[in-house]
């Protein structure tokens, strides 16, 4: 069957060059980086090389990079690691209504331990307002965590502007206030530079960058201390215990290097393919609503609500024709609730349930887009014909037409 993968926000295929880079570290170069002997030193050197590449991707110094088992662990380490560390200075966290389930989950866990959490709205465009952050900041705020780009609608948040506020307060004496940003999605689609952003902590995940699942990193600005979460061993300068996954870290390093080198060209290609896609959908399917600001958005993401039908039905119908997309966050698509992110945009239940995320990748082709443009309208139409909501709407439109004529 013809297969078209338009779910790059959920995960990406591993770049063949990345596979090639990691393979020797499964076989001949299998040492444990903590070992003193040849095998260990060889592995240690590879981890350090990868650390330099990952640091280079975000403009950090190598010793500011802590490797983790993924974006989720990076978020856990950032938010809990800092909050445990700063609990004596205050117990208030500012976040947004559209964070990834990991940040959302940790914030809920903090609330159960008597922390206060302020969740900022994102309005109809899926973008947090800097003034809202300003208004939410308090003397006992120790952490602001705002994702750099959202995983469902791709909207980019004003992190640098928020950093300016945080810096102001810190200079005014609120020394323990830190800014964390989840850049897991952003890194694949825009330039990310920790100094331009001005953040203290920044999360990355390799599997959104054409490397394998199971490795990520937390950027920890020099001087920022965290309570370690995964304890044991001296790895990662005592900030994260556990034998390093050398092959995955090497893969991450190579993927970071390729992303740095190719980012501009990738985003140019992807953006023009998305334009082809969206123009095509608009001309073929009626009653659609885009979710999230279309300008301030990652280049590869197109999130569309199809009126009258339900996302999972459309997803499965597309899947039966070989087209892979997602509805809601990949992580919660097994659950029944409509996506909290789409809800945060103020969409009603029906539109929230009818949202589909198409996410393009660096290897998406024009032909693939055209194939999707061929099968998507038919799938929507067929589901709408089954839908009582559609029948009602069509009926009342016909009625409106008749009574208006």
């Amino acid at each position, binding site marked *: *069957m013809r297969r078209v993968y338009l779910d790059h926000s959920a995960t990406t295929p591993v770049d063949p060059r990345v596979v090639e880079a990691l393979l020797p570290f499964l076989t001949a170069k299998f040492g444990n980086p903590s070992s003193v002997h040849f095998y260990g030193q060889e592995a240690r050197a590879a981890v350090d090389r990868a650390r330099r590449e990952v640091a280079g991707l975000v403009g950090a110094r190598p010793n500011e990079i802590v490797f983790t088992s993924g974006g989720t662990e990076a978020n856990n380490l950032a938010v809990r690691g800092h909050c445990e560390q700063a609990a004596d200075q205050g117990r208030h966290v500012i976040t947004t209504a559209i964070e990834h389930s990991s940040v959302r989950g940790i914030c809920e866990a903090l609330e159960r331990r008597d922390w206060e959490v302020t969740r900022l709205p994102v309005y109809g465009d899926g973008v947090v307002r800097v003034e809202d952050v300003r208004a939410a900041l308090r003397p006992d705020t120790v952490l602001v965590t705002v994702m750099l780009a959202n995983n469902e609608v791709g909207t980019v948040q004003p992190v640098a502007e928020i950093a300016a506020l945080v810096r102001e307060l810190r200079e005014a004496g609120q020394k323990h206030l830190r800014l964390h940003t989840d850049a897991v999605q952003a890194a694949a689609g825009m330039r990310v530079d920790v100094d331009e952003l001005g953040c203290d902590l920044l999360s990355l995940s390799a599997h959104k960058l054409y490397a394998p699942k199971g490795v990520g990193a937390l950027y920890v600005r020099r001087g920022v201390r965290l309570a370690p979460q995964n304890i044991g061993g001296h790895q990662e300068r005592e900030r994260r215990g556990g034998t390093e996954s050398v092959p995955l870290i090497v893969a991450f390093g190579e993927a970071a290097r390729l992303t740095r080198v190719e980012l501009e060209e990738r985003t140019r290609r992807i953006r023009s393919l998305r334009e082809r896609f969206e123009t095509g959908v608009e001309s073929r399917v009626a009653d659609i609503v885009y979710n999230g600001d279309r300008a301030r958005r990652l280049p590869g993401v197109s999130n569309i609500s199809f009126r009258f039908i339900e996302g999972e*039905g459309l997803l499965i119908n597309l899947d*039966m024709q070989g087209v892979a997309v997602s509805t809601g966050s990949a992580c919660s698509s097994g659950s*029944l609730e409509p996506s909290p992110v789409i809800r945060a945009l103020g969409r009603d239940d*029906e539109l929230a349930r009818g949202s589909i995320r198409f996410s393009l990748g660096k290897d998406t082709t024009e032909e693939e887009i055209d194939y999707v443009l061929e099968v998507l309208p038919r799938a929507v139409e067929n589901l709408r*014909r*089954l*839908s009582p909501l559609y029948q009602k709407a069509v009926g*009342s439109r016909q009625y409106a037409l008749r009574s208006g004529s």
Partner: protein
Amino acid sequence: MKVKLTFSTEALPTAIRLLPTILSVAYSDTFKEHLANPRNAGTLEGADAEVEQSNPVCGDRLRLALRVRGRRIEAARFLAYGCPPTLACGSALAWMLEGMTLDEAARLTRAEIAEAAGGLPPRKQHAAALAYETLQESLTLLRT
């Protein structure tokens, strides 16, 4: 005929033209067949009962239209909005009902509907429940 349709159509998708599905893990062949080729989809000219029920929790909707001759269901059509199990249960229900007597229909259980849809994962049993309630409501309407 108790519910007034505000639109008229019998132009129905007799089959959503779909390639063989690959949801081998989550769903059975029968289920996939109901999704790929929904049975008895649409509305019904001259229906004796037409009932639309919705699940207030998740918003799923099922509309069932029945035409009865004597004590036998001569025609059954469904429309559905919701996750795939709701579509499959609607299809399975309308398809089973055609030709049944009203007594037989009254004895149908939730489990039988779920089974006819090809089986449902535990977290999707609410789809069979919605179909069951829609059927019961229709039968009640026919009795009044």
